[in-house]
């Protein structure tokens, strides 16, 4: 912790970080101050008045906590009768014009109005006059749907578009209780981060067209994950649910705060990439086009690999550090050529200076650390020369860049270990289904050299195997991610002293890694 100050909350002395406002400072020591409009990424606005706290001997005696820095000796009153009454009164006023539609509201279960009602309000409505009516189900673009009646006018969304994306599509028009959030007619949301608005809206005013009415949030299991949409590796929550007699399905990704990687937000493309985990999956094991048991598929693959004279193993830049290591080990075992060629995962000029990277590979950095060849020329030569290609889930056709390689595929026998049904895998004599990122755990390193660990979140009925497990079945020595580490530590200097279990939640910035964009 940086410099600290000591202050009193309801008479109890607490030590908090200096320079922070009361909401942030006290949260760290377990004291929550209710609020709607304050958001650490957007700063204090002070409009909701929910965070009003008392300052004993202070002038004024009542201040918004979001705008009040923690100061030494300050005597903060939070739970006394006067403050509880204010919180109750503010809640009543927040709710008088709010529709009672929790049963059909997607926010129900993660709504601050609901939570604070239970915590601070708990009174019957005294509203016996007509409510203010405003717009419903307004299409704001980018899949954001707005309900003006549910809105508490905290202006988080407006501030987001002005301060974060600097696109300014939203505004609050009118004044008095006619004030409402809207877009300028014909100018809907048009930025690649718009769905964060749904995350930051503290109530049910901003909902995602994609998620609306799909699932009640209290049924969702919320696991931590890492987005594999590009080389930034944003921290996410994977919200998934197994219906009775159904499969474990992912319903959405949400941004997870990680100040070392993505701050508070994620891009829309990454957010919607959860669909990839649910759709177009390769669940069946095939040998020469015939469905077989997984074990039979492994047997067929083993036979081919043992027979091959010039095998070529291709690793995906999305694979975890441990998976890559395991593949590298079996390449040595089989005397195979190993390539991590993955130019197709780069989309030039697609990135921006915020979170989106040109490089759509989640872990290219590890390919470099493990000194796995990524060169196109050598891959092409090896491909022309090989009699067997074992492709570990590398989508060579992710972008059209490899059209010319298409004719080279098929000149050799091919085994594909794949999570999805993709053109690049068609024509393989053996197809072994494997797990997608939400279904295994491991380590990946983002483009800035931040090493993050993630755990398995989803257990689908098809139960596809982790690539690492498959390499073990194919004769590799590595049977788990943990077992990969002694070897990794030994061969990669920068990881020599890394203990995977001790990597902090925010990731580990590899110390002698300079800021760089790793080339393919």
């Amino acid at each position, binding site marked *: 912790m940086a410099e600290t100050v000591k202050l009193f909350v309801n008479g109890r002395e607490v030590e908090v970080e200096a320079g922070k406002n009361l909401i942030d400072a006290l949260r760290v020591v377990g004291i929550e101050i209710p609020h709607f409009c304050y958001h650490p990424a957007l700063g*204090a606005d*002070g*409009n*909701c*008045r*929910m965070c*009003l706290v008392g300052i004993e001997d202070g002038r004024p005696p*009542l201040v*918004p906590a979001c*705008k009040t820095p923690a100061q030494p000796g300050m005597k903060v009153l939070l739970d006394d009768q006067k403050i509880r009454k*204010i919180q109750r*009164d*503010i809640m*009543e*006023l*927040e709710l*008088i*014009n709010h529709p009672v539609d929790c049963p059909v509201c997607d926010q129900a279960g993660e709504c601050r109005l609901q939570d604070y009602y239970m915590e601070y309000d708990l009174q019957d*409505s*005294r*509203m*016996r*006059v*007509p*409510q*203010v*009516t405003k717009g419903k189900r307004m299409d704001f673009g980018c899949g954001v749907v707005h309900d003006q009646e549910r809105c*508490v*006018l905290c202006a988080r969304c407006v501030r987001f578009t002005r301060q974060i994306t600097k696109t300014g599509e939203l505004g*609050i028009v*009118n*004044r*008095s*209780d*006619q*004030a409402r959030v809207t877009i300028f007619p014909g100018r809907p949301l048009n930025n690649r981060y718009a769905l964060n608005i749904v995350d930051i809206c503290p109530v049910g005013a901003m909902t995602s067209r994609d998620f609306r009415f799909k699932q009640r949030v209290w049924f969702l299991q919320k696991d931590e994950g890492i987005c594999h949409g590009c080389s930034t590796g944003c921290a996410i929550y994977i919200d998934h649910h197994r219906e009775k007699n159904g499969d474990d399905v992912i319903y959405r990704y949400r941004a997870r705060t990680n100040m070392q990687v993505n701050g508070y937000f994620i891009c829309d493309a990454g957010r919607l990439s959860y669909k990839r985990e649910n759709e177009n999956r390769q669940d069946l094991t095939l040998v020469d086009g015939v469905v077989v048991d997984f074990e039979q598929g492994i047997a067929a693959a083993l036979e081919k690999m043992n027979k091959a004279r010039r095998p070529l193993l291709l690793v995906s830049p999305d694979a975890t550090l441990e998976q890559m290591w395991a593949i590298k080990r079996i390449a040595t075992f089989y005397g195979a050529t190993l390539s991590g060629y993955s130019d197709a995962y780069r989309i030039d000029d697609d990135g921006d200076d915020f979170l989106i990277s040109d490089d759509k590979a989640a872990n290219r950095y590890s390919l470099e650390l493990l000194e796995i060849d990524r060169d196109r020329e050598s891959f092409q030569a090896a491909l022309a020369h090989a009699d067997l290609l074992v492709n570990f889930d590398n989508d060579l056709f992710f972008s059209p860049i490899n059209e010319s390689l298409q004719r080279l595929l098929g000149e050799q026998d091919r085994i594909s270990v794949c999570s999805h049904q993709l053109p690049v895998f068609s024509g393989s004599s053996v197809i072994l289904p494997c797990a997608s990122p939400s279904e295994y755990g491991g380590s990946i390193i983002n483009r800035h050299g931040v090493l993050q660990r993630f755990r398995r979140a989803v257990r689908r009925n098809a139960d596809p195997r982790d690539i690492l497990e498959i390499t073990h079945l194919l004769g590799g020595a590595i049977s788990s991610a943990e077992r990969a580490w002694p070897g990794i530590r030994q061969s990669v200097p920068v990881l020599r002293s890394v203990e995977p279990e001790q990597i902090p939640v925010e990731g580990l910035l590899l110390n002698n890694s300079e800021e760089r964009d790793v080339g393919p």
Partner: protein
Amino acid sequence: MEVKILSARFDIDNAHRIDVARTHGAYRALDKLFAMAPAEVIEEVKASGLRGRGGAGFPTGMKWGFLPKDTGKPVYLAVNSDESEPATFKDRYILVRDPHALIEGIIICCWAIGCHDCYIYIRGEYTSQVKILQAAIDEAYGAGYLGARVAGRDFRLDVTVHRGAGAYVCGEETALLESIEGKKGQPRSKPPFPAVVGLFGCPTIINNVQSIASLPYIIANGAAAYRAYGTEKSCGTHLFGISGHVERPGMYELPLGLPLLEVLENVAGGVWKGRKLKGVIPGGSSTPVLTPAEAATVTLDYESMAAHKTMFGSGGIVVLDETVDMVRLVENLIAFYHHESCGQCTPCREGLGWMLKIVRKLLAGEGTVADIDLLRELCDNIEMKTVCVLSAACTMPVRSYLEKFRDEFEAYALDGGSPQPEQREG
């Protein structure tokens, strides 16, 4: 009872023209001004006891003293000419009848605080008034009182008129700054105070038109001459606007401290049509109402008003005769503040609308005694929970009517009426 300090040139034909104004003394304080150091000017204004004439009554010289020294940033003066508090119409007379007193006052203030860029924020409704003001400013530029060298001195001063467009809240000083910055007029949280972080992030003084227009007299004649009028703590004269149910409504300049009823009787001709007095709103619609008994003992100064649990405010006195329906009056009042709520803070934005609907429910004969109690409770729940005092400007007077004229509200209430089922507006 009337005096002519501020209003000395009001009755002179064409005093809004610079040649006429100069003939009658305009800009004569400047020689004396530029012989004084800025700090001496501030001391003189402090000594005069001049208090802000916008309604809050904060000592003007002390306000100037809050400016931080040597920040390296420009200092701004924003002249508050938004006067939109109902019953307030005094500044308009200065703008129209003696705009050069305002400009001369601006020069004095800017010299004192080291300001070279002044903005006059004038309410949008003052359509013809803004033309007269702008013409006077143009004349002052032409005569060398504004521009690169004010009155031939090495002192630059530019004055820009910024028009409002229909928002009472812009009379609140930080909302006014927001409005000049091209934003909605939504008040800022304080601290920081405008003297430290004001217009365009720079130290800023905001003064009311009448405060500024009082300066030439103070500089020309000295603080003592100004203090000769008024009381010990409420010094000088004030432009009082008297309206409502009196025989001779209008704007009158009076020294502070006179008995209210005497003024109403002798200056404004008493309650009109020979009717009886029911109440007096002493300083604009946001000030708590006085009963005739209270009005009989109050004097027109800050201290006496406070002692009577109301406020001096803007000096806009409204007389209510015996025919006034206090419930309807309160409806008119809440409708105003509700209409003008900037919509920023939850209690004001949502609460004033609720209060308005409750009063309308009473007026429709559908209300209950419980509704009156709720209305009274909402005054407490909303007041002082917001960034600015607009909501208090509504709840303070409403509370006073509810307490002093409760029987009228009860007359509208149904005895033991049951709450109506909830419904939504069509």
